[in-house]
């Protein structure tokens, strides 16, 4: 096991720079998830840690050692690929034993480790099968088994669950997390799915256009997003965002339809921010039903049983709300809502930074 330090790492293809100086410190045993929309550079960064891409600038350390010019085979890492990348001409057992055979480990040791990994992952009776005879979830487990047998310093996962169906994905999510708790190996995991990131990570790194937007514990990112991008990316359904101006009375939202503008309550505006152009953010789950609150027209109701997702229109804008209560109102009718002012957010309109 080892820590991983990424210091001012850059990546350029010719004159196009895709990663612009990224700094990430990953502690020994930590489960870090790189998350972001496609094209944000998260997979490239992972491949740079693995040694599959050259590093154009900066430094990557695994443990105490700078690995910039170390080939993948000497980095002592294991990687699980999106499409599993199992060797089609080898049995499950041979797939898992491949790295140890290359290292010329004694036969007994190979067998012992493969058997143990197979037991952990429930593959014990599939060892003699070939990858083509396995289901998607089983292949995924073999890919993980191959990584476990290697007993590496660092596990790397490149969107490992995106080829699985929704139900299996939830199940494998739990399995990977359990596995990490059991083995305590430093893990870097790439996904574009923010729910995967929220549920599994010790630390989330939100990336966008080749830079780190914010990095921190899942709930910290949820509670205190640094900027509009993170605010919109973390949380589902996404945070409601209204453009407008901070006034003495609260937040005066622009009415895009040209009618009267609504004033939203804010907890306490940061000092000296009055009159500033800003964006007001409130998460759907932080809007309450309140007969005395802002009048809003119901547009769509989506009950899921445990909660009800409602799209409402007020002040010319549409908002998504999630209520624990069941809603009796029909589309077209009016309900009263009010945001929980202790958890509303304000961002600067120009820079997108949190105020």
């Amino acid at each position, binding site marked *: 096991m080892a820590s991983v330090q990424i210091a001012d790492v850059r990546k350029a293809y010719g004159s196009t720079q895709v990663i612009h100086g990224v700094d990430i410190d990953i502690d020994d045993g930590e489960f870090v998830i790189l998350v972001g929309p496609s094209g944000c550079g998260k997979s490239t960064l992972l491949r740079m840690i*693995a*040694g*599959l891409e050259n590093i154009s600038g900066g430094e990557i350390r695994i443990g105490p050692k700078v690995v910039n010019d170390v*080939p*993948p*085979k000497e*980095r002592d*890492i*294991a*990687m699980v*690929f999106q*499409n599993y*990348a*199992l*060797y*089609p*001409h080898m049995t499950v057992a041979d797939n898992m034993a*491949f*790295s140890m055979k*290359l*290292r010329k480990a004694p036969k007994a040791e190979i067998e012992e480790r493969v058997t143990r990994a197979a037991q952990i992952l429930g593959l014990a009776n599939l060892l003699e099968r070939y990858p083509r005879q396995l289901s998607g979830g089983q292949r995924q487990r073999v890919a993980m088994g*191959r990584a476990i047998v*290697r007993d590496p310093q660092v596990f790397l996962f490149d969107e490992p669950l995106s080829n699985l169906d929704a139900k299996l994905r939830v199940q494998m999510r739990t399995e990977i997390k359990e596995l990490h708790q059991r083995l305590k190996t430093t893990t870097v995991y790439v996904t574009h799915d923010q729910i995967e990131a929220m549920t599994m990570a010790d630390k989330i790194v939100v990336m966008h256009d080749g830079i780190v937007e914010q990095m921190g514990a899942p709930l910290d990112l949820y509670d205190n997003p640094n900027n509009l991008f993170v605010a919109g990316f973390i949380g589902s359904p996404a945070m409601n965002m209204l453009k407008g101006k901070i006034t003495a009375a609260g937040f005066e939202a622009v009415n895009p339809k040209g009618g009267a503008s609504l004033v939203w309550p804010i907890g306490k505006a940061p000092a000296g921010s009055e009159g500033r152009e800003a964006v007001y953010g409130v998460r759907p789950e932080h809007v309450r039903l309140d007969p005395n609150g802002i009048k809003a027209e119901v547009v769509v109701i989506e009950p899921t049983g445990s909660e009800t997702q409602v799209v409402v229109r007020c002040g010319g804008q549409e908002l998504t709300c999630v209520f624990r209560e069941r809603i009796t109102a029909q589309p077209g009718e009016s309900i009263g809502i009010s945001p929980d002012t202790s958890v509303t957010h304000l961002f600067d309109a120009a820079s997108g930074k949190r105020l």
Partner: protein
Amino acid sequence: MIWHRSFTRNLIQVEIPVLLVLAFALAPFLWMLLTSIKPNADLSQFPLRYLPSSTTFEHYRTLIQRTSFPINLLNSLLIASGAVLLGLATSVPAAYSFSRFRFRGRRTLMTSFLVINMFPIVLLIIPLFVLMRALGLIDTFIGVIIGHSTFSIPFSIWMLVSYFNAIPRDLDEAAMIDGASRLQTIRLVVLPLVMPGIVTTAIYVFITSWNEYLFAMMLSGETVRPVTVALQLFIGEFTVQWGILTAGGTIIALPVTILFLFVQKRLVGGLTAGAVKS
């Protein structure tokens, strides 16, 4: 699409035309086979006699016992095997690099291999002959083998690149992360997976070299004369030894036919490999 055709329509539009084409293509072979087992008396008979009055293998016997044909067969075997070995030794590494590395001039090189095949062989043979003479390679095995490589190597590279491309790069990367060197990756992961493609290519090169006439005629002499050239010598100025000629033709066609049966399915598979997601 499901297509319901009536039996008669099917017969007229598909089966009869196909049978005609097949008959047209196979008739010379059948005629050759029949001629090779006819007694000499039947050959000169007029009007033409289609079926032999009795079957005989005397032409085969004459061919093998009284002519240099067995040696020519051996020559052909050596040349074709040599072309396969030289072809694979160069085109397997070349195809791997074309498939896996992105380097300057990659596209140009690939295209130029294709362009070579566009020139008529007749155009190529004269400079090649001059070159071989200067190098003293006329009438040597290596000379004819190199001659055949001029078309077999470009073809093999194109074939093999598509086979290599069908193997996901992730597998190479997984192997390298598992601790394999580049060469171990090739030997333990890539080559076993591309082996069907290599076998197919090898057989194809063998067949082409075995059947080749023009290069063989220009570059070989007494010592390394292959069967295709030897056969032609049975056509004299005044007489044609039909019996021996057709017996030789039959013997030459035999290994090719057998090998082709092995590869035909794979060959089509290789040309369309990667066209659809499997």
